[in-house]
């Protein structure tokens, strides 16, 4: 029941989260990541996301497998959007259902941290007066 997807379409966070609900769980923890308007005082106009799609999907699948080894979780869903996103639009949803909510919180937080570190997706920030591809921390060892 896990899923990991990349799409150009708007994300319905509530509907995505509902896809992980199993019969023996009582809570789902969901991260809704969206385009923030202000970052350190600079105003973003919009973002453009791009992915190395087949590798990104493989990395998401690996992340979910690792999360299952680390945490007692039932179902995981990850969906990332690509293309041009306006302020406030959802770029990523990570949703986790677990029998105990502690594990769901931990797994959700771990998954978004690792996704930002390992999944080959990039964002270009378009601000008033310019644009720049954001480069993350080069934490992956070559």
């Amino acid at each position, binding site marked *: 029941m896990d899923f990991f997807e990349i799409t150009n379409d708007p994300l319905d966070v509530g509907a995505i989260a509902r896809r992980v609900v199993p019969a023996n769980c009582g809570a789902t923890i969901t991260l809704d*990541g969206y385009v923030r308007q202000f970052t350190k005082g600079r105003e973003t106009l919009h973002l453009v*996301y*791009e*992915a*190395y799609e*087949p*590798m*990104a999907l*493989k990395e998401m699948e690996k992340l979910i497998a690792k999360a299952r080894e680390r945490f007692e979780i039932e179902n995981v869903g990850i969906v*990332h959007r690509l293309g041009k996103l306006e302020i406030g639009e959802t*770029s*990523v949803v990570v949703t986790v259902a677990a029998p105990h909510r502690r594990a769901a919180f931990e797994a959700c937080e771990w998954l*978004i941290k690792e*996704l*930002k*570190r*390992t*999944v*080959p*997706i*990039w*964002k*270009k920030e378009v601000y008033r007066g310019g644009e720049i*591809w*954001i*480069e*993350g*921390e*080069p*934490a*992956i*060892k*070559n």
Partner: protein
Amino acid sequence: MKVQVLFFGATADETGEREIEFSLAENTNANQAFAEIVEKFPRLKNHKLLFAVNQEYASGGEIVKGGDELAVFTAVSGG
């Protein structure tokens, strides 16, 4: 032998390419292959780069084979 090399985001902008065919000697390892690619597109040196071979992060010692899919990109920033 020929390989495909993909660029994304900043590395696509720096090279002006998204996908190229690239010639390598037989038995080239990933470190050597990526060094040659960076030599051909020196503006890539402006970035901290990550490399992949066949959609897996490269550790460097992998022997590259003809037809392999290589990729050069900056540290990821999704989410």
